[in-house]
């Protein structure tokens, strides 16, 4: 029995290590891309493009639900973007707070007649459209609550332009973020169907007039952990996945899509959280089945800043929701796995998502339980438990370190030495509880999914001006 317990623990560790090995490979690809292509692109000034007649116009869609505290700052940041021609459509998805009133009062909006450009995507009825000629490119759509994907579909129906950008209501785009995204699109407009932007943690930063004027690390524990996680995921992971056209997700907080392909795949849907991953998988499937060359890219120098949860209940709610979404999406598209026809996505990305997102939490948990059982049968072998825990911990830190290298070599957003020391220090702390908590939330998310629980959970919004506890609005949102 003892031997079996240890053998199982070793098996669990090696299984997880195989997945980590792939992640390490992706990290190395990210490094190469960052140094070779991103650094020059990052330093290149985009003033040349900002006045260009060749830049395609974009419809920016901002679905929102109960965002009265953050919506004004977000809209102001969008209306001051450095971009030649675009429109901003805020879709108020049946908010129960004063989101609509806040917008109407701040911008002097009045009702205007509405006719959908396209009627191809299903969405709940639109109650009204609001506009002010003094803000000619800004519209607010008020509609019945239908969830984020429903709101996005309604926004697509109303949009005028061939490119749509989806932006969360609590996101602040940098002024040249859209230009940087569109530059990637213009390199190959026929093949590019979607591009993801880089989401960075705004907690702790100084924000004025809808712009991050001073970049700072978060000063609370949870946002700081999430900051490192985001670096790992976006810089360490997505750059590499994008390079091999295996990206499974374009963050809902900031992405750019070709409208015609969105409509071809039936727009957003699914009926569960994880609509950002769902739409990308639908796009991959459609394009691979059609045999047309395509790419879904990631642009790390197109940055959007977002608030992340700073309390455990809200963070847990978010992570469980993500976990539910991942599980349902991987399950929905399981038919693509290990099928050569589906290329990198079928042979690499989806299996990786399956093993890493779905299986590895169980393997880690049962592996540790097995080790614990092994040690309990012979307390002198406690070093074995420590050894495995150390191995797990060090690999997590290795990924954080790799991501910090990319940040330092290609972007250097955090210029102070103490920022680096803080990030390195918290990378160590993360593996002493936070990573394990994430495993727990993943498992809880799976349980929710099996119970068919589709709520968005507890989401807390704070005003952009109050990073420290102040006014908060707690909302409960359901589909």
């Amino acid at each position, binding site marked *: 029995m003892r031997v079996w317990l240890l053998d199982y623990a070793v098996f669990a560790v090696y299984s997880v290590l195989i997945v980590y090995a792939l992640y390490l490979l992706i990290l190395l690809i990210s490094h190469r891309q960052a140094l070779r292509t991103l650094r020059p692109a990052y330093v290149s000034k985009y003033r*040349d493009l900002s006045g*260009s*007649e060749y830049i395609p116009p974009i419809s920016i869609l901002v679905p929102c639900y109960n965002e009265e505290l953050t919506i004004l700052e977000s809209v102001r940041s969008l209306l001051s973007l450095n971009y030649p021609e675009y429109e901003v459509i805020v879709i108020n998805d049946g908010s129960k707070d004063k989101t609509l009133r806040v917008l109407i009062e701040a911008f002097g909006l009045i009702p205007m007649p509405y006719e959908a*450009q396209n009627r191809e995507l299903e969405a709940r009825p639109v109650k009204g459209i609001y506009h002010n000629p003094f803000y000619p490119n800004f519209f607010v759509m008020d509609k019945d609550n239908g969830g984020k994907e429903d709101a996005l579909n309604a926004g697509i129906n109303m949009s005028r332009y061939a490119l749509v950008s989806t932006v969360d209501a609590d996101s602040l785009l940098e002024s040249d973020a859209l230009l940087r995204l569109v530059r990637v699109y213009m390199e190959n407009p026929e093949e590019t169907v979607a591009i993801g932007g880089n989401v960075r943690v705004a907690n702790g930063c100084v924000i004025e007039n809808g712009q991050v004027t001073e970049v700072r690390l978060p000063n609370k524990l949870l946002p700081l952990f999430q900051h490192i996680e985001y670096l790992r995921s976006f810089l360490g992971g997505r750059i590499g996945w994008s390079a091999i056209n295996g990206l499974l997700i374009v963050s809902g907080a900031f992405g750019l899509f070709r409208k015609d392909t969105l409509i071809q795949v039936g727009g957003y849907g699914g009926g569960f959280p994880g609509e950002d991953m769902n739409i990308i998988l639908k796009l991959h499937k459609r394009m691979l089945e059609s045999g047309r060359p395509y790419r879904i890219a990631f642009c790390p120098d197109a940055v959007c800043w977002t608030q992340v949860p700073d309390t455990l209940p809200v963070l847990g709610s978010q992570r469980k929701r993500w976990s539910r979404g991942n599980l349902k999406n991987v399950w929905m598209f399981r038919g693509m796995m290990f099928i050569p026809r589906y290329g990198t996505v079928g042979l690499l990305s989806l299996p990786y998502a399956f093993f890493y997102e779905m299986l590895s939490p169980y393997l880690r948990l049962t592996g540790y339980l097995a080790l614990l059982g092994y040690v309990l049968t012979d307390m002198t072998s406690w070093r074995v438990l420590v050894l495995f825990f150390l191995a797990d911990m060090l690999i997590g830190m*290795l990924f954080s370190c790799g991501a910090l290298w990319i940040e330092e070599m290609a972007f250097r957003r955090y210029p102070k*030495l103490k920022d680096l020391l803080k990030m390195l220090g918290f990378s160590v702390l993360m593996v002493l509880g936070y990573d394990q908590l994430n495993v727990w939330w993943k498992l809880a998310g799976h349980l929710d999914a099996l119970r068919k629980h589709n709520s968005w959970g507890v989401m807390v919004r704070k005003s952009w001006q109050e990073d420290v506890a102040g006014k908060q609005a707690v909302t409960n949102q359901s589909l």
Partner: protein
Amino acid sequence: MLNDLSSVIRLTEGAAALILAGAAGLFAVKLQHVRMNRQSARYLQKHREYFSYLAAHVGGEEPLMPPPGQLAALEKEAIRDKLVEWMERIRGEERWKLIGLYRDMGLAGEDMKTLKEGLHWMKVEAAHRLGVLRVQEAVPALLDLLRKEKYGPSLFIIARAIAKSARTPGVLREMTLVIAGHKKPCHELVADVLHDSSLDLTPFLESFLDEEDPDLQMIALLGLRGYPCPRLLPAFERLLETGSRSMRRKAVQAALEPVGIIHPQKLRELSRDKDEEIRLEAARVMGRIGTEDMIPHLLGGLKDKLWRVRYESARSLYRLGEAGVEALCRTAVKEENLPSGQIAKNVLIGELRISSARAADFPEEILPFHRCLNIYRRYFPEPGHKVPGVREKAMAGIF
């Protein structure tokens, strides 16, 4: 079992070693970057008065003097970056004076050297700076770099530098051929890069119209948009007849953009084209031409199956002035329950609101706005048809 544990031990040791080395390396690099940033800030502070001298004399007759004394490498870099930043923002003689200073300081020569010898990302940054400087001598080396560069963002940074520095159209042609050789549909980006050049693009872009390579034809169509060249019309029309869908669209934009060079009869034909994007372009241009004989065709556009064509046709009708507004009002009344009537009414309301807002700021717009509003009132006299957002009372007070 022992083997398994020894593997785990080796893995742990390996990971620990990598992390320690990585963290140490990262720390060292960060320290270096922090030191460099602090030192650069100190150098910029040290040369504050020199920059004030530059700002004060950049518009003068005398050439600008380089900073006094021997400069450290990092000091030179700090001044270089500051100069490049200024040169990117300003235009005209002042920029050329700064370029002269940059050269006199030997910085252009250093960039040329980096172009040949540096690491890849350093070469691309040097190319960017040489482009800002418009250094003609750098063109051969830039073209060389362009030929070796893989397709990606760096390719366009180098291409833009070439476009800015080129003194002969032959260089631009060469550059375009290199990029087109990658067989990527980046036509808009290439056209945008070409427009960074101060040279006349027309001759060599015209020659591309006769090429068989569709990529070169597309680049030409995009690059020639907005050039009033009636002699190119036959080439545009040829591509309109024979080209692919995207080619036809670009040909229409090129033919229609300089309003007035296309024959009105051709424009009317385009308003009935099978491609909705071409009908859309035609509807847009009809409003800009401004002649009332476009009205029947725009009224036809109100019945188009595509919303955007209906919308642009309605807007163009409004742009034609009183005759167009009259036509819109008639349609809004007679075809009230049809898409054509609905779009006519919606656009009337929208455009009247915009005109009202403009009239508040531009007095010369008051009369035209009121004439249009009076026409609207004739067709929709009931109070229920008040135009939301239009300050009729405010406007009435002026008279």
